């Protein structure tokens, strides 16, 4: 089982498992415009065993995926009918400082354009109010029918349910 989300482990290679839900929680959301989300970087993350022994840092590719997942939730919350947002292009990405075990990554995305066929977003990762990484991302949309029947963005659903429950 995944310690983070209590879901069954997705895959296994020689005992190593990796889920790919890289956003823990949405903090603020304006659908189609902006999102602030967070990801706690557990010291137990398996990738720290290899990246790197004695100098554990979050791989830039995972920081980019965190930004993409946060922006994707912002786009999906705007319009579910056009499909699931999929990262199509990393237009640019910069990694300014190391993100280390135990830190909380704040993921901010500002949607620059959101059209039926594509969307673009300016994204960044902050830790303790310091910008650690940023990226410009291009998204396309894949019809929901291409995904499994049970596909659901649990993190987004949880946030929306909580928002609706507020007085």
């Amino acid at each position, binding site marked *: 089982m995944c310690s983070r989300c209590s879901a069954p482990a997705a895959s296994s290679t020689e005992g190593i498992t990796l889920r790919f839900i890289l956003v823990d929680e949405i903090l603020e959301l304006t659908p189609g415009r902006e999102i602030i989300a967070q990801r706690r970087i557990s010291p137990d993350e398996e990738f720290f065993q290899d990246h790197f022994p004695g100098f554990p840092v979050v791989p830039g590719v995972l920081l980019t995926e965190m930004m993409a997942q946060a922006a994707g939730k912002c786009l999906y919350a705007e319009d579910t009918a056009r499909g699931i947002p999929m990262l*199509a*292009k990393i237009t640019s990405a910069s990694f300014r400082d190391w993100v280390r075990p135990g830190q909380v990554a704040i993921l901010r995305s500002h949607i*620059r*354009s959101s*059209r039926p*066929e594509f969307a*673009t977003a300016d994204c960044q990762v902050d830790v303790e109010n310091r910008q650690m990484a940023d990226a410009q991302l*291009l998204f396309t949309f894949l019809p929901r029918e291409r995904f499994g029947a049970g596909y659901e963005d649990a993190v987004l659903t949880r946030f929306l349910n909580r928002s609706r429950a507020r007085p």
Partner: protein
Amino acid sequence: MTEEQVIAWLGEVFECRAGELTADRSRDDIPAWDSLGVLTLMAGFDEKFGLVMSADDMQKLQRVGDVLALLRSRGKLD
């Protein structure tokens, strides 16, 4: 924007070397003018020129010169 500037911008969009693109270059001769290239171009039209294009509009663009003609017709070329 001048024609030269647009061609330079298209070179960035389609990841071509400087001078590689000319008005008569066909989409078929530009490897990066694929489905991702089309998306990138659509996003560029939107953000750089304020032009919202449909997938059908994009299908009509078959040469670099077609892009120039489109921008000219929309008053975006000097």
